[in-house]
């Protein structure tokens, strides 16, 4: 019997064989390990994303949710409230309002390159480049305090996305990280209330909708989520892109020969090695799918990482091919809950990787692929460390 044990540390090293088995033979699968349904076909995941009335986010969207979070963040609200709040925050995240960040991101990326070059041939792309770029971009975008040492923020963001593999719940250390991040968010909010800037937190505090401001708890939970999601998902996407570039040198060469392919290479990376692997919904009514009846109140895992490898949607799905049209992938989710940060993530990746590939065009994994350790998270998939060697 096939198992979908997303709590096993090894699962994310290669979830794709299990995903294929599920897509082919158990497209609507009850996972004993997760105690949730799992949808893996592209069509089913997309239908669920496009039907928020049936597949509700109001009981949380993380596979393992934190207490008090659901209902207080964009990702855990259903329309119409979701749309009202999104109207407030959307403008900060729109492509047309992000151009002022291109130059700062280039500078940030150039600064991070200094961590990767020098006497040593080996560097950790995860920490030295992806982590560094991500945190500094968030400082600029959200208005986080500038600090020389973001170790604590990064450590807690990482803990927040993890789940205890034994209890299959958030453990004390994860809850503590959540509390830490809430306190951190409160400090940022206080800072920006006193010293407003053109950053997102300042806008969240002052934003009004129909004469009403957002509740403080909503601002706090939203900032908490943006820091956690920002750090883990942008860094995660950068890491898997770096990984794909290292293990598919012929694709990297194709890109180096024609850098106008970079946006396509990034889209294909999101499809092929999706960092946002799995999110959760809760059914508001009984749904019968592929002969199974899922009950109202049941939780459903939407396996984006599996949908993006569905051969019903993409020919040769297990091939990383930067020249294919991979649009329509669900690497940024979809429907009304499409990732709020999708434009800044794409812009940051493109800008930062342009710098990286110009400075360090040739590299490979510094250790065998099977030694890579993947982040133990029921939501996200990315390597903990990515040791690369410059050729």
């Amino acid at each position, binding site marked *: 019997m096939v198992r979908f044990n997303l709590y096993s540390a090894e699962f994310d090293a290669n979830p794709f064989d299990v995903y294929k088995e599920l897509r082919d033979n158990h497209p609507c699968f009850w996972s004993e390990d997760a105690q949730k349904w799992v949808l893996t076909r592209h069509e089913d995941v*997309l239908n669920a994303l*496009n039907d928020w009335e049936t597949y509700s986010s109001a009981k949380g969207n993380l596979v393992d949710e934190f207490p008090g979070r659901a209902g207080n963040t964009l990702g855990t609200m259903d*329309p119409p409230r*979701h*749309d009202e709040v*999104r*109207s407030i925050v*959307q*403008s900060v*995240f*729109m*492509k*047309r309002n992000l151009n002022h960040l291109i130059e700062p991101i280039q500078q940030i990326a150039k600064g991070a390159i200094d961590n990767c070059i020098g006497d040593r041939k080996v560097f950790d792309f995860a920490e030295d480049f992806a982590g560094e770029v991500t945190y500094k971009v968030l400082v600029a975008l959200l208005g986080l305090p500038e600090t020389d040492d973001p170790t604590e923020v990064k450590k807690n963001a990482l803990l927040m996305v993890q789940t205890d593999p034994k209890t299959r719940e958030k453990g004390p250390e994860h809850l503590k990280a959540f509390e830490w991040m809430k306190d951190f968010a409160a400090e940022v909010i206080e800072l920006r209330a006193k010293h407003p800037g053109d950053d997102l937190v300042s806008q969240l505090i002052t934003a009004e909708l129909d004469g009403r401001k957002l509740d403080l708890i909503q601002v706090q939970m939203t900032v908490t989520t943006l820091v956690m999601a920002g750090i883990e998902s942008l860094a995660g996407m950068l890491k898997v892109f770096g990984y794909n570039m290292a293990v598919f040198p012929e694709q990297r060469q194709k890109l180096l020969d024609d850098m106008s392919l970079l946006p396509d290479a990034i889209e294909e990376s999101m499809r092929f090695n999706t960092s946002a692997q799995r999110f959760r919904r809760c059914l508001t009514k009984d749904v019968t799918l592929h002969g199974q009846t899922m009950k109202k109140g049941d939780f459903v895992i939407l396996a984006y990482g599996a949908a993006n490898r569905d051969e019903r949607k993409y020919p040769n799905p297990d091939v990383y091919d930067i020249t294919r*049209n*991979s*649009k*329509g992938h669900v690497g940024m*989710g*979809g*429907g*009304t*809950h*499409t*990732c709020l940060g*999708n*434009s800044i993530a794409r812009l940051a990746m493109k800008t930062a990787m342009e710098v990286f590939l110009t400075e360090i065009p040739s590299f490979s994994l510094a250790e065998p692929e099977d030694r890579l350790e993947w982040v133990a998270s029921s939501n996200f998939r990315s390597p903990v460390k990515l040791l690369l060697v410059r050729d």
Partner: protein
Amino acid sequence: MVKINFIEADGSETELDVQDGWSLMQAAVSNGVEGIEAECGGSCCCATCHCYVDEAYLDKLEAANDKELGMLEETVAERKDNSRLACQVKVTPEMDGMTVHLPEVQS
């Protein structure tokens, strides 16, 4: 299924069979039609799924509500009489055969 033909600014055409009840935006985005960005995912707050619908079909579409009319002020490409936000147009069987033109820029 309802047939909708998307024509991009460069003239390339994509004919899609769209599920009744889906929005034009959902259909376009999930099938890789390039000319629609839909940054906000369909919450009617970004105006990057701007499209021009076939005038012959205009009266078959539900009229734009105030929120959509407000967002249509924000489109980057020229707003015309047949401008709509694709996320707000739900496909119905009456739209079968409709052509949707996409503008040159969304943002």
